[in-house]
């Protein structure tokens, strides 16, 4: 039995997902392989049991994810018997866009935001479930659970539909889409407590281990493969590190940690002094950058 607050959050997320499946023609669940996606997928399996998952998973692959993320993704899809679509922005690959030389801003725009829009258009999905939480960032705090996007995936923060009770307005016209944040009201701590109590598998990179790293601009970057160009004064060093948030490896800052179990992580969380997004190099690019990215179609 879950504590009441987690039981309530779980039931709320289940209800949101069921509304999506009942009201939309062709929904999809965005799967980023991270802890939030793992929890969202776990809850979706509960929501539609005994039926199979009534929508596919979509992973927008920037081709710069940690190798352990990709193997975890493929294993999870197999274990849970779900349909997995992997989409890469081929145009971006051909243009040679990468997080190291192109900069995090351009890389994120082309390989994540544009790629996501491409995939939604290609498969004609009309609703996309995502695991973003309102506690992550200030502009997320005002995001709706059912977030309307006009044709072209545009988000207008000044013209959002009021959301009262749990009565979601799911109506859209041809070409318009909905982003649905089923875990809006979860916090980072809720997510870890839930993972611990429900014994949900997560990518091993969340747990501390000796890993090869270099220090860059105050961030600890793991050398995951040979593509990361090392400067003359850089030599990868083995450090006991883990990640609070996962993305493209050259853009994901690690933290020094000895937390090797979920219990350790929860304990560490309770005494943490920096937010989880601090490790994300893409947020600090410019003021109010998340709001800007979201208006352009970022999840």
């Amino acid at each position, binding site marked *: 039995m879950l504590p009441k607050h987690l039981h309530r959050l779980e039931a709320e997320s289940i209800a949101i997902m069921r509304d999506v499946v009942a009201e939309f023609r062709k929904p999809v669940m965005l799967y980023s392989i991270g802890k939030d996606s793992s929890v969202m997928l776990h809850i979706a399996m509960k*929501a539609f049991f005994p039926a199979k998952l009534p929508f596919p998973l979509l992973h927008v692959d920037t081709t710069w994810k940690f190798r352990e993320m990709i193997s975890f993704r493929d294993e999870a899809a197999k274990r849970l018997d779900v349909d997995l679509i992997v989409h890469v922005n081929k145009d971006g690959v051909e243009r040679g866009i990468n997080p190291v030389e192109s900069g995090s801003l351009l890389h994120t725009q082309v390989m994540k935001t544009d790629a996501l829009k491409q995939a939604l258009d290609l498969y004609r999905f009309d609703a996309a479930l995502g695991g973003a939480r309102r506690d992550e960032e200030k502009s997320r705090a005002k995001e709706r659970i059912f977030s309307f996007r006009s044709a072209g995936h545009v988000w207008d923060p000044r013209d959002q539909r009021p959301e*009262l009770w749990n009565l979601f307005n799911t109506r859209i016209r041809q070409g318009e889409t909905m982003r649905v944040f089923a875990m809006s009201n979860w916090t980072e701590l809720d997510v870890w407590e839930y993972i611990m109590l429900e014994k949900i598998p997560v990518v091993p990179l969340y747990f501390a281990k000796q890993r090869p790293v270099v220090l860059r601009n105050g961030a600890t970057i793991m050398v995951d493969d040979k593509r990361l160009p090392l400067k003359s004064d850089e030599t990868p060093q083995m450090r006991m590190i883990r990640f609070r948030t996962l993305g493209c490896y050259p853009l994901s800052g690690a933290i020094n940690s000895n937390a090797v179990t979920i219990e350790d992580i929860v304990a560490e969380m309770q005494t943490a002094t920096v937010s989880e997004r601090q490790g994300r190099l893409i947020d600090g690019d410019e003021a109010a950058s998340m709001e800007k990215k979201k208006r352009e179609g970022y999840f």
Partner: protein
Amino acid sequence: MTPKAAVELVPARTKDQLRFITCGSVDDGKSTLIGRLLHDSKIIYEDQLTALAHDSARHGTNGNDVDFALLVDGLEAEREQGITIDVAHRFFTTPRRSFMVLDTPGHEQYTRNMATGASNAQLAIILVDARKGVLVQTKRHSFICSLLGIRNIVLAVNKIDLIKYKKEIFDRIVEDYIAFSASLRFTSIVPIPISARYGDNVASRSGNFEWYDGPCVLDYLESIDIQSNAVIQPFRFPVQWVNRPNLDFRGYAGSVVTGSISAGDEVVVATSGQTTRIKRIVTHDGDLVRAEAGDAITISLEDEIDIGRGALLARPTERPQVSGQFAAHLIWMDEAPLVAGRNYILRIGTQTVAASVTAIKHRIDVNTREHLVAKTLGLNEIGFCHISTALPMAFDPYEINRETGSFIVIDRYTNRTIGAGMIAYPLRRPTNIAWHPLSVSRNERAALKNQKACIIWFTGLSGSGKSTIANIVDQKLFTMAYHTMLLDGDNVRHGLSADLGFSEPDRAENIRRVGEVAKLMVDSGLIVICSFVSPYIAQRDMVRNLVAKEEFLEIFVDTSIDECARRDPKGLYSKARSGEIKNVTGIDAPYEIPLRPEIHLRTTGQTPEQLAEAVVEVLIARAIVDNY
């Protein structure tokens, strides 16, 4: 660091969540209070504080002090303007409880946002500036909280430092508030003197005044008993989705919103009255013997009964109301005003239905709670209305059940959420005007006249030629010995609609009346020719829906606005241009073009005679009349 033992990390089984709203304007220190709660409960991380210090220097209003309000004002536009314009969600947690703060703006023009926040809150913190006392806005916030069903209030008297911590001033404010709120439906009001800026009585008791011996805000939020009575209320289960993975399993997925149910219990489908028993309560973690409010489950039933999304299951002994008409409080949320008679979409629970507001009984002044006469409701206005739905709906009064007594109003064309409602009670038709079965049918009456009865509806701009063409059609049918009646826009306004003007609600009412009259004439077997500007799709569709599908022909008389203005047979357009009259369709009032008219008459290059002939040919082709 040394991790604590795992057993201490598991949150207590009893740890629950409290969702509360904060009411007050920026000047009252609302955002500062929330920033302070977050900061003092150690939920603000160092990197966020660094960003805050940076932002404070740029936008802050506190000089060189850290401005906690910047922690919570999220969107760029708000930070620039220094106001909170939307509903923001904040989270913090203590070992006993986790909290979600619904932070909403306080100005009157944001009633919509405040109602949105209040709809999901179990408690409200109402902020009052100690220097100003209970203001009009305090009363407005309290009324909206009460209307939306919040029963527990924290009256936070802020800036107590600025009145030198004087007990008399605090006592007077509390006295004022309790006197004023006696007529509201609060069950508890807890007054706490605070200074959000300095943290007095926010997350810990203040040493600055000895006369106050109550709890600080955080202590109270942690300890208030919000054990909702949801579980002891009657069982309500709105079906969300039918789970049919294979032929052997048919389950109804949904959440128990109130009450509880066990396998084997008898249930009824509220609208149809069919009864059956619960066979299984299915979850991924195994079947349950019993489920209660807050559980997301899948139910299978003993009998094969055909129900889908929107059905509401209850116990046969505790049924909800079922009616196609009810009275409700309505909060209007759109720039375009509410129009009585217009068709809207309602979502009640998992049910979605077409509906219209049949009457606005009164509007409520949110500041004084006075009841005012109203023909319409504008943005942020609250009214008490009668609503009619296309199908009977299952619901409970909002007072009794927030989950089954609430609804949202959606615009059929823009899909925007334009209103929110709270059902007060069902309306029942007086039994003495129940439908009287007619012993001679309309078909028999029409057959006697060798015709099929129908409505031929001409729509188009003023001066488009509708009435001219309609008249010729009427004459042609008359000479062919058919029984017709012509209803013309200008003529009905001398009698049937003499009391109506040209505002949108009045236009809607005019068309409703004409529609009802035309329907009675169709019942008597007549071919009814109507010629009305009728600019709104919803209103034309309302008339269309009064009769059978083949009995309504919409004729779009398509003449450009320039041509109409050039003809200007009634001098309307020149008067509109000079500003003498308002609400002229095509000039300062919209005309919604028919999307699929039965007949589309493009008038350019055609004589009225030719156009009328084209209409008669369609009537013959549709066997409404015979050939000559």
